[in-house]
């Protein structure tokens, strides 16, 4: 995995050379260049004078300067994050993004104080090329597919029309304000105002994610706000570029506006297609990674990043491309690669997006401290006010229309949260720096920073109490029971059938059609032969095994039919759910994946009281929590094993690949810490007396028997 780090580090080192933080003992280089696009490669001053004699001990900072500084920044970000979580009551009140910005402000202030010049700033290229993709990729990979597509119409409605409404509204009203305050703001033209409107109106996915993840509102609300923030990128990009090119043109005609409209469609759909293409290629590649499993995760990242870069190259929407890529390749990649690779992918995604997000917020704070500010009370205040007003009216109007077409109306409380949760973030910040220079640019920069800080701090901090105050419907904490699962599936099938009878091509119809297409063509082509039926019960037992190897000491998920306890073991629930979701035809897994940056497993996992089933004799006192049958009934063990072997026989898949899988990764994965750790744990489990090792050994024996 070291290879993964050096590549982006080297690339960013070159580009982020402008972020050079000259150490105090150096000759102070005059960094008087405007920190906006800082493409100056720092030469770092004269190197240390080499005396004639040979030195035993020497310091050569410049050799490692760039990567050293980058690592220091990342270290700062991560330590700040750690500190945040250890700081007691603070996480409950203040969202993480706020704290990070404050840390950034502090650091920026310190640097300013020490060097008496502006601290390094977030260069737009670094942001768009390196910091943004991991976050969006993470969001796309863990997107709850079913919910997203069910609400796609509404999301698109908000994203496209809502953004247009906001942009035009804010731009035009700001122009009105500029006209009113002729004295100070007279030289801001209409196009400038529209340009500013286009960059300030967009809701930012990074900020939304970081604030909403701690709130646990109901999933529909979450997906609406979050989906909107992802998809409005297409509109924002086009409008921004459109107005920018209009600024350069001598005159603007109606035809140009029309072309601009077409461009929105092209940009959005183009990004989608690029993402689809790369997603399918990635899925196909993952099919052949069985012999080199260690680098399988690499393909996921490479292809996603390629899709992003390609669409940026073609001036299409990079965010849409990378999200589509992630959504497309997820199910095939998960079926194709080994469990270890899956875990690696997920962990790396979380880690990278976490680091990116932290860095972004810190840099937002640092970049606020600079001497390019220009303040203008009317402009700043009116921008703030207008942003709020236009967003609120936009949401109200659009929801009124869209509620007529939805099965599930968006309530007023939800609407309020949608309007209030429209946070601005680093995308606006980077875009404002990219504007061509003109007299009032500094005013724009200042205003953008103020708006971002306002939305993140004021709205970010108050939204959680508001959610509780308004009693917005929260996320269902408990996972559905088995009954609910089964009956819900029944109802889904029933509804699909009734829709067929009525001849109504509703959601169920299209979902069915897609699933059939998927099964018939895509899965056959993109998933390894011996993993085709992997979507069946084999997964349950591999999940079992994986958990035991991880040392979670959880109970085997099979239900002992003879035990008449009412206790629902979470692990067995999970496995039953897995069986159902993999096997019940045509409907996707309803599990909402983790949004949280900090955990990988579902929130509910941490909510359920973890009741580890200790099998060791020494922990006898815990046994009283459990029905005695569970422990002492050795028949249940045999039953489980019989079921196991029978199921494996039914599946007619040789269990060999399963075992080979884990052993292969164990042998070939020295750099990957996780499988190595797992394999160290499992032999330990073989040793102590107890049912786990016996079961595992028996499992192995059963497999041998079947050869």
């Amino acid at each position: 995995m070291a290879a993964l780090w050096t590549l982006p580090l080297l690339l960013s080192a070159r580009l982020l050379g402008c972020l050079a933080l000259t150490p105090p003992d150096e000759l102070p280089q005059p960094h008087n260049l405007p920190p906006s696009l800082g493409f100056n490669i720092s030469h770092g001053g004269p190197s240390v004078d080499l005396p004639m004699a040979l030195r035993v001990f020497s310091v050569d900072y410049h050799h490692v300067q760039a990567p050293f500084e980058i690592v220091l920044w990342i270290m700062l970000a991560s330590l700040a994050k750690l500190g945040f979580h250890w700081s007691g009551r603070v996480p409950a009140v203040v969202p993480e993004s706020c704290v990070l910005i404050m840390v950034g402000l502090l650091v920026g202030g310190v640097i300013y104080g020490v060097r008496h010049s502006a601290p390094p700033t977030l260069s737009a290229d670094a942001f768009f090329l390196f910091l943004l993709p991991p976050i969006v990729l993470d969001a796309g990979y863990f997107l709850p597919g079913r919910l997203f597509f069910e609400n796609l119409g509404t999301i698109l409605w908000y994203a496209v029309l809502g953004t247009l409404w906001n942009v035009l509204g804010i731009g035009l009203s700001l122009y009105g304000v500029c006209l009113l305050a002729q004295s100070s703001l007279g030289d801001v033209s209409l196009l400038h105002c529209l340009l500013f409107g286009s960059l300030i109106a967009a809701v930012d996915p990074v900020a939304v994610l970081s604030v909403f993840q701690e709130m646990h509102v109901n999933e529909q609300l979450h997906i609406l706000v979050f989906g909107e923030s992802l998809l409005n990128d297409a509109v924002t990009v086009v409008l921004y570029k459109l107005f920018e090119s209009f600024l350069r043109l001598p005159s603007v005609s109606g035809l140009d506006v029309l072309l601009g409209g077409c461009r929105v469609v092209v940009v959005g759909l183009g990004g989608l297609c690029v993402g689809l293409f790369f997603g399918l290629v990635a899925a196909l590649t993952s099919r052949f990674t069985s012999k080199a499993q260690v680098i399988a995760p690499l393909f996921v990242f490479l292809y996603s990043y390629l899709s992003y870069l390609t669409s940026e190259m073609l001036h299409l929407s990079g965010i849409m491309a990378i999200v589509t890529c992630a959504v497309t390749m997820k199910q095939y990649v998960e079926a194709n690669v080994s469990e270890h690779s899956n875990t690696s992918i997920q962990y790396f995604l979380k880690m990278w997006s976490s680091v990116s997000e932290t860095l972004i917020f810190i840099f937002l704070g640092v970049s606020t401290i600079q001497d390019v500010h220009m303040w203008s009370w009317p402009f700043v205040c009116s921008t703030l006010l207008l942003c709020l007003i236009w967003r609120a009216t936009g949401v109200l109007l659009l929801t009124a229309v869209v509620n007529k077409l939805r099965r599930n109306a968006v309530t007023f409380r939800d609407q309020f949260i949608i309007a209030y949760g429209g946070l601005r973030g680093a995308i606006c910040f980077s875009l404002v720096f990219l504007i061509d220079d003109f007299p009032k640019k500094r005013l724009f920069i200042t205003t953008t920073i103020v708006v971002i800080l306002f939305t993140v701090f004021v709205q970010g901090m108050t939204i959680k109490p508001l959610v509780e105050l308004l009693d917005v419907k929260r996320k269902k904490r408990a996972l559905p029971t088995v009954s609910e699962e089964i009956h819900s599936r029944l109802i889904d099938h029933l509804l699909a059938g009734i829709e067929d009878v009525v001849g109504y091509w509703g959601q169920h119809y299209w979902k069915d059609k897609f699933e059939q297409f998927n099964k018939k063509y895509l899965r056959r082509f993109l998933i390894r032969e011996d993993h085709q039926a992997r979507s069946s019960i084999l997964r349950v037992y591999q999940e079992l095994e994986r958990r035991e190897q991880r040392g979670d000491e959880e109970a085997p998920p099979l239900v002992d039919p003879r035990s008449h306890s009412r206790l629902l073991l979470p692990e067995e629930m999970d496995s039953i759910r897995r069986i159902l979701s993999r096997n019940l035809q045509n409907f996707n897994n309803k599990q909402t994946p983790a949004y949280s940056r900090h955990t990988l497993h579902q929130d509910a996992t941490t909510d359920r009281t973890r009741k580890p089933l200790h099998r060791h004799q020494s922990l006898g006192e815990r046994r009283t929590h459990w029905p005695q049958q569970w422990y002492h009934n050795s028949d249940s063990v045999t039953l489980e094993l019989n079921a196991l072997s029978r199921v494996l026989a039914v599946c007619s898949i040789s269990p060999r690949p399963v075992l080979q899988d884990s052993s292969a990764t164990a042998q070939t994965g020295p750099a990957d810490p996780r499988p190595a750790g797992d394999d160290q744990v499992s032999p330990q489990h073989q040793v102590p007396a107890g049912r786990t090792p016996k079961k595992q050994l028996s499992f192995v024996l059963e497999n041998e028997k079947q050869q």
Partner: protein
Amino acid sequence: MGSRASTLLREEEIEEIKKETGFSHSQITRLYSRFTSLDKGENGTLSREDFQRIPELAINPLGDRIINAFFPEGEDQVNFRGFMRTLAHFRPIEDNEKSKNPTASEPLNSRTNKLLFAFRLYDLDRDDKISRDELLQVLRMMVGVNISDEQLGSIADRTIQEADTNGDNSISFNEFIKVLEKVDVEQKMSIRFLH
């Protein structure tokens, strides 16, 4: 198609269906044209074969049971009234209906009636209980061939255990309602019938 529909369906019938099911005039006419397009024999009733000709329904795992639900006890033909009566269960519940006449009989698309419809998909013998076997049958239909009988049996047992409050090892209708109380049935079991 439209003209044929309107001549064959009398106004009084439309009014009666409207009162019974709550569909609007245009919805009824539209569904009538669907009915006639399914009715290949052109005798004003649908048989089981007519339903089975619908391609997607044939691959639906619960296809046969859904078709059965349209036909009243023991009969092989269903007329338009019966067709509409069944479909009325899936009309979305409108807010203004909720506060209507409390003494009037429950509309066909109430939550209880929707759940009863789903319940009847399991309970073939109409004894008002879902036995373990009935549950297993439906599970097997939904799950396919990849799971062993034993595994399926455990799932069925768990389902019954979760619902069963009186210990008779089967699920009664009230227990069924109780289990699904957290599920938004009104929304799940509704189709937007286009106007």
